[in-house]
């Protein structure tokens, strides 16, 4: 598996532009929930942690992976829950 860094950088650049375009339009009212939801989304690191902890690796490595998985999962759970909790409060009159 030769990681073709050309196409990875390409994806990174495009995703950054999409991110800048989308985030710029986010309502300023919602900047706190925005931060908590992007936090939950970037906990997609969970995918990397699952591979490290779940595959047949030496024990020490699996422990590192388990701690990483715990940390990412905490972010996913608390990030999405608190975002929804905050968004529920925004009402118009």
């Amino acid at each position, binding site marked *: 598996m030769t990681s073709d860094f050309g196409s990875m950088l390409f994806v990174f650049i495009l995703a950054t532009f999409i991110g800048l375009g989308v985030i710029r339009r986010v309502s300023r009212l919602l900047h706190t929930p925005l931060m908590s939801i992007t936090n939950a989304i970037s906990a997609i690191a969970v995918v990397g942690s699952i591979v490290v902890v779940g595959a047949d690796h030496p024990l020490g490595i699996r422990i590192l992976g388990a701690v990483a998985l715990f*940390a*990412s999962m905490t972010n996913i759970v608390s*990030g999405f829950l608190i975002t929804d909790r905050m968004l529920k409060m925004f009402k118009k009159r």
Partner: protein
Amino acid sequence: MRAVSELSAILATALFIFALNWMNDPKTARRGVVAGIVGMTIAVVATWIQPEIIHHGWILLAIAAGFVVGIPLSLVPLTAVPQRTALSHAFGGLAAGLVGAAEYFLWLGEHGTGAAVEMTHFRMGALCAEVILGFLTFTGSLMAAGKLQEVKWIPQRPVTYPGQNVVNIGVLAVAAGLAVAMVLHPDAPWARTVFFVIAGLALLFGILLIIPIGGADMPTVISILNAYAGLSAVAMGFVLNSKLLVTAGALDGSSGLILSIIMCRAMNRSFTNVLFGAFGKAQPAIAAGEQKVWKQETVEGAAQLLEQARTVVIIPGYGMAVAQAQHKVAELYDALTKRGVIVKFAIHPVAGRMPGHMNVLLAEANIPYNALVEMDEINPEMPQTDVALVVGANDVVNPAARYAKSTPIYGMPIIDADKAKTVLAVKRSKNPGFAGIDNELYVLDNTWMLFGDAKAVLSDLVKQFGSGGIH
């Protein structure tokens, strides 16, 4: 199986983009949370069912632990949201750093056996970036969370010493230099030791970076740490060759970047100035020359002023959060609107300790979000405003920002509270604000002070309207 993981990655990416897109309006925002959860679930399941995953018990245990800690963390009072956010940046950084370390040792272990994945210069570079960004975000965010939570052994005020910037940049430069050496010679016998040194320096740099930061800079610093956490996920994506990780990390990184830019603009400062400028070491010498005195107003008098006003603009600040006064503010809002007074809230972008902090607190207190007005929109209305009521805000209403070149807040856009016909300012004590500067607003001819805890003062104010029958 390969196709499943590719397809699910594309699906999850699309859902994440939709999730952020729906955040542009409070009406559709909750849909974004659903999209995010669905995307995340798809990604997790698609990874979990891959044939090489065999230790299911470990995964279940770690996920369960994540729920056990995550659920209480989502139930913190909204005044504690800045420290919760900083803590989650720390977790994000930790996960990236640990996965990076695991990948490195995995490669080291398999290296001799020939089973190893090829370690290109690019991957090694990404791995070093992941470990440095991850670990510095971890300790930096922990420090920030500690400062926000006012943990005893972490100094609140910025700690500065001569040569601080040289030390900080030096530590980072050594780590970066060693990383370059690793990239050039990943096989060298010293590489393993150097890896530990790099990780240690990154952890140290995170702490050093936050030590000189004061409370007023927290919104910017949290945003910058947000960007770092995102970038560390991107670096992890490069290492693991995962487009999904790169994309999600880039979305998080760009969000942190945009928020940092907004925060810096709102303080008229640059990134480097925030990170290397140490806001709080302000010169208390300013304004020490002309000692003007403030005029104190009684609660009765203030209530009368508010009742007779046609338009009132309330300017909340961190003091409101500290005193947990948002519900009392809401009661006052109700009492005044019932009497036909038009009440709006003027929200400065850096009011509070993180972007959007005031909006969330006021929404919690049931203030409709159409009453929350941004600084740029409210300022043209200030001269026609009868009463500006400042609740726990300080630097963001200090007129000195317009002309006093020697103060650290010079050039910072402010809410023009001083242009209102009358200013009422609720303030806990007679001490200067976080920037350490006297506030000229308080000694203007049309300003009246109400000293005391914001919650207590506001509840007294609300009582004045009690006879009119609120609730």
